[in-house]
């Protein structure tokens, strides 16, 4: 693959949710864009990979260690909100209803994708339970997110900590990312012990 266009299409189509058709369209779009804009995009990609890393405490994405939330003394360290992916933190933050800290699992149980408990960041979670009075399970309202929450509830049961789950109503196979702030705030307020 020495053809630069084919190479770009190949790289783009490796991104999640992007097939060859979309990759081809994006590549042809980039060909029409001024070179300076293309360079800005390339720089942004490189900068992200060089300057950002995962917080060693909560696994969120950060440029300082530990991350802003983990090191903020104003955040309530006795409340821990467990999410699947780092990008699930922002929607919870936007509700303005949560003043605790986070733990990112880096995935959800999914045998079909080869993800079992060993592939999730669970050891870090168990290590952080000292001083925590409530763990809020905010995994996605999908089949995989539900199974993960049920697994965690069982795992945390002997640990003398209150475990709650967001109240989504009917699990609709959705994603926290696509849940609007009002709904998410309501799920947070209506969380139930499991």
């Amino acid at each position, binding site marked *: 693959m020495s053809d630069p266009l084919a190479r770009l299409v190949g790289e783009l189509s490796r991104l999640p949710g992007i097939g060859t058709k979309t990759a081809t369209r994006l590549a042809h779009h980039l060909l029409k864009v001024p070179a300076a804009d293309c360079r800005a995009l390339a720089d942004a990609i490189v900068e992200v990979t060089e300057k950002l890393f995962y917080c060693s405490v909560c696994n969120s994405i950060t440029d300082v260690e530990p991350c802003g939330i983990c090191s903020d003394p104003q955040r309530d360290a006795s409340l821990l909100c467990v999410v699947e992916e780092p990008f699930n933190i922002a929607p919870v933050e936007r509700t303005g209803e949560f003043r605790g800290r986070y733990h990112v699992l880096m995935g959800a149980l999914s045998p079909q994708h080869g993800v079992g*408990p060993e592939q999730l960041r669970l050891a870090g979670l168990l290590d952080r339970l000292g001083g925590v009075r409530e763990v809020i399970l905010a995994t996605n309202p999908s089949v995989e997110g539900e199974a993960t929450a049920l697994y965690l509830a*069982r795992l945390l049961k002997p640990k003398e900590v209150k475990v709650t789950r967001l109240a989504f109503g009917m699990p609709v196979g959705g994603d926290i990312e696509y849940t609007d702030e009002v709904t998410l705030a309501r799920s947070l307020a209506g969380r139930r012990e499991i």
Partner: protein
Amino acid sequence: MLAQLSCRSFRNLTDTDWHPGAGCHLLLGANGTGKTSLLEAIYLLATTRSFRTSQPEDCVRWGEESFHLRGEFENTERTSLEVGWEPGGRHRAVNGSSTTLASHLGVQPVVSWTAADHEVLSGQPAHRRRFLDQGVVGLKPAALGVLARHRRALGQKRELLSRGGRGLAPWNEVLAEAISELVSLRQQYVARLRVALGRTLTETGEALPVIDLRYRPSIAAEGGAEHVLARLAAVGAREREEKRPLLGPHRDELEVLWGERPARRVASAGERKLVGVLLTIARGRLLEEAGRSPVYLLDDADAELDRGRLEALWPLVAGGPQVFVSSNRPVVWEGIEGATRWAVEGGKVGPAQGSTHGSETSTQVSDK
């Protein structure tokens, strides 16, 4: 109701713009002229699936690269549906925009009996489960969510069992919720369909043996999700041993009874056809009662039926709000009233020659 149908590069049909109107339509023509393709186009528009193939590209006319269907449907409001396929994939739209499958299915319910449905009576239980679920979703498109959750959780559990089955508990718990919902939906549907079927049988005025339905769920739903979970847990060791899920809606059976015995074993081909048409009418009546007026599609309606049975069924069939019936034996229909007759020839549909029916003057056909 289908008010207008446009087909482009679909099967063997000439690119068509057809305005069929309400009531009963009899599509007459020899085999291979396009009758089934017309019914398939209507079915595909309403359900996004074909009853002949699971590969949409099979519907592309020979020598073409893509096909496109568009229908205008008139119910409480006018809605356009589009379904098509091109090498990049399939597409569908409601009023020009892409939307959820549930809202697409919500526009125009259909009930049909085609060659593929013979499997419902004589084939594997999976065909009857699909028949059940289509009925459930027809009445309540939102039930798609439960079906999807069940399928997904079962798929995960199947994968886990094939890898040894460690960590089954949370999956059984998620599955139990979906199972208890799905089984009660199926149960409610069968209960209602039995009532509608009983009424349909009475309407025929025919002296027929008992035709009935019996739903046999692999796990009963009465005890709710907790009961389901207990049943799943009890069978866990054996599931791990056999490396596959042993209990649940994927093992349910729907018995169709003819004279108190399974129709697939005792009924003749003609009797099974009769049961199929009666079931289709009963399914349609249920939708009508629920205020979701369906389009009825009966392919090769007279095949396997003798003239007496056909005459007994006809008033029930022709009484639907909009009905499309196909046949390759025009002579059988001589003297049978109450339908607009269409001739299907070489992929074209047009008013039948010498038809005495008046309603077709208000309908028109034009080839683009």
